[in-house]
């Protein structure tokens, strides 16, 4: 008898739990808790402030911030391990601009066309939308962008009556002249050129700024081109003439900044966040001596082109609270949240209108130039196999820089290697 009762109870509870699981996609009644896998809190804890503001309009949607690891590649690993196991406890998460094709083709995330239709995208910078799109669908809502820029020593340029260079030739000539007059010991250009993603960003900017490309819109690999070879040769010869620090092939972005901040550089290619750091007298000798400008172009380019960095929100395919999650995602990509991040953390907003926002411009006047930079900024090559493409690119560019191959040979090898990726 007891046994039968037990069995009955187990069966009843199973029926109920199956029922509970059945309503997967329907917005649940009553309060829901969303898990947002996000960056670690910034110093000013802006994320919690945004969640609190969101709860004033949506008191029934609790947002629980789960912090991801610091490094982007560690974030990717942590997310992939959880998502591939079918974990539904992640509702939505911060994703790098380069992840779109990979996640979209893996089937781990939900397309957002329903929640983020074309009508809602007008205020976003076109580059951020392009980076969130893959295969004719949109997969991410951008909330933060980034673009490579040129830092220059405004004091030295002024002292010797030089204009901010608009081509790489001008840049190297200007720097050589200034270095000679300053008594030597300075380098023309520095960037994050250690083998890795930083180098990929730099090299892709060289290619784009000389009219070249890496992957054509139809998906064909086009890295082995005359434009790319020309600009790469120019960079190799600049490196070999010691117009860049000799150790630059092992420099991460911190090493590059250190060289600039110690007054050893006339120019530096870096992300905008370096500006705030450069103005801290504790680790910079160039406070008040730096200007920020768009990148120069190569001889065949029409203008300097920055690659886009930045972050967007992806929605887990297995989330049980998609509608509620979409509400918060939209809010986090909205004006209020992006403005707060710009003011408190100097993040670059993904929304055009914020670059003419009075509060932001009075706090950071150089934000004004970014609308021009973003007019031409482009995503890195878009491929589901992005990590492999980027690895090949940075390795072959280093092979050319260190002189173990000609620039043309390195690009031909990169072309051959990239064509094999995914097969």
């Amino acid at each position, binding site marked *: 008898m007891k046994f039968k009762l037990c069995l009955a109870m187990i069966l009843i509870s199973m029926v109920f739990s199956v029922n509970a699981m059945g309503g997967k996609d329907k917005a649940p009644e009553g309060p829901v808790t969303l898990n947002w896998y996000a960056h670690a809190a910034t110093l000013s804890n802006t994320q919690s402030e945004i969640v609190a503001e969101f709860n004033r309009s949506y008191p029934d949607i609790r947002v629980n911030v789960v912090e991801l690891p610091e490094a982007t590649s560690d974030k990717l690993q942590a997310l992939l391990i959880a998502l591939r196991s079918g974990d539904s406890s992640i509702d939505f998460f911060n994703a790098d601009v380069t992840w779109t094709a990979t996640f979209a*083709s893996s089937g781990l995330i939900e397309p957002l066309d329903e929640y983020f239709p074309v009508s809602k995208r007008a205020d976003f910078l076109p580059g951020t939308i392009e980076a969130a799109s893959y295969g004719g669908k949109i997969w991410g809502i951008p909330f933060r962008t980034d673009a490579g820029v040129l830092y220059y020593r405004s004091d030295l340029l002024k002292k010797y009556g030089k204009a901010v260079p608009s081509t790489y030739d001008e840049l190297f000539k200007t720097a050589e002249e200034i270095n000679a007059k300053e008594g030597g010991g300075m380098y023309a250009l520095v960037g994050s050129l250690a083998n890795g993603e930083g180098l990929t960003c730099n090299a892709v900017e060289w290619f784009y700024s000389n009219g070249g490309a890496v992957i054509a819109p139809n998906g064909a690999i086009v890295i082995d081109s005359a434009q790319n070879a020309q600009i790469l040769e120019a960079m190799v010869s600049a490196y070999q003439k010691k117009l860049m620090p000799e*150790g630059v092939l*092992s420099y991460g972005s911190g090493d590059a900044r250190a060289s600039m901040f110690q007054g050893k550089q006339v120019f530096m290619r870096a992300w905008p966040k370096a500006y705030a750091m450069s103005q801290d007298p504790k680790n910079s000798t160039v406070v008040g001596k730096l200007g920020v400008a768009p990148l120069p172009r190569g001889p065949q380019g029409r203008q300097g082109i920055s690659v886009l960095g930045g972050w967007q929100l992806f929605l887990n395919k297995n989330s049980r609270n998609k509608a509620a999650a979409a509400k918060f995602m939209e809010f986090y990509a909205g004006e209020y949240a992006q403005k707060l991040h710009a003011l408190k953390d100097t993040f670059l907003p993904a929304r055009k209108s914020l670059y003419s926002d009075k509060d932001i411009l009075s706090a950071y006047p150089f934000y004004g130039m970014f609308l021009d930079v973003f007019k031409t900024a482009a995503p890195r090559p878009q491929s589901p196999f992005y990590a492999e493409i980027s690895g090949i690119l940075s390795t072959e560019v280093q092979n050319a820089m260190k002189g173990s191959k000609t620039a043309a040979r390195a690009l031909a090898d990169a072309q051959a290697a990239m064509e094999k990726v995914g097969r």
Partner: protein
Amino acid sequence: MTKRQFGYLLISPTIIMFGLFAVYPVVRTLYLSFFEYRLQFGETMTFVGLKHYVNMLTNERFWNAFGFTMAFTALTVGFEVLLGLAFAQAMNKDYPGRGLLRVVVLIPWAIPTIVSGFMWKFMVHDQYGVINQMLRSVGLIRDYVPWLSRDIGAKAILILADIWKTAPYVSLMVLAGLQGIPRSLLEAADIDGAGPIVRYFRITLPLLKPVLATAVLFRLIQSFKVYTVIVALTNGGPGNATESLTLYTLRTYFDAGNYGYGSALASFTMIVTCGIAVCFLDVIRDKVEAGRKGRAR
């Protein structure tokens, strides 16, 4: 239940744990290495037989990584053994300050690899590295050398950094071995007229063999799987000059999401390390048995 069955019952948790956490992952990795299985293709797995192994063995990048890993392993372990033997002798003698020496020698071993890697990166920096300053002040170089931007330089610094860090470990193992050698043996040889060199090569070194073999085995396997120091110092650069097998495997498996080919690389590394281990297990077991026989006689 017999005594024997009860014995098996008692060790069963260990065996189950071992199976779950050691055997299963290994078998699964081997299994995956025969499939095309990628992040980008969702959960679809296609059997491709030995395709990944053929690709691997015809891939220049693989041979480059394998060659560097072999050279790195041979050089680091070779120097570490020589230095370890020398340090251990110095630490074994009785003199004032010996305790201090023992502590000082161990400091590099106590520093986490990632930290010592970054430390070396600062020391060899092309603009403000202390090693460049020292070499220039004694007149060995005229201009600062960008060590990590050159193939040979980057390889040499990695090997140096690893030797610096791990020689203390070998010396500690050898020291333990030295302390296990009965003084009476050395004294008897001394009385029979054997000089210090003969004593070292005829008595000390042969008696150190089991402990040395263990140390070398551990070091060979660790060195063959080198990863952390490379990530801190060169991240595989310049170009692919310092990409080790493990770095290549992790980049393929985790960064690129190429689980099939990544598993083939991991399986290859595992087969090599198992091969090393099997060679040495013989040496170690022979010694143990020889020791037993010696005592029995």
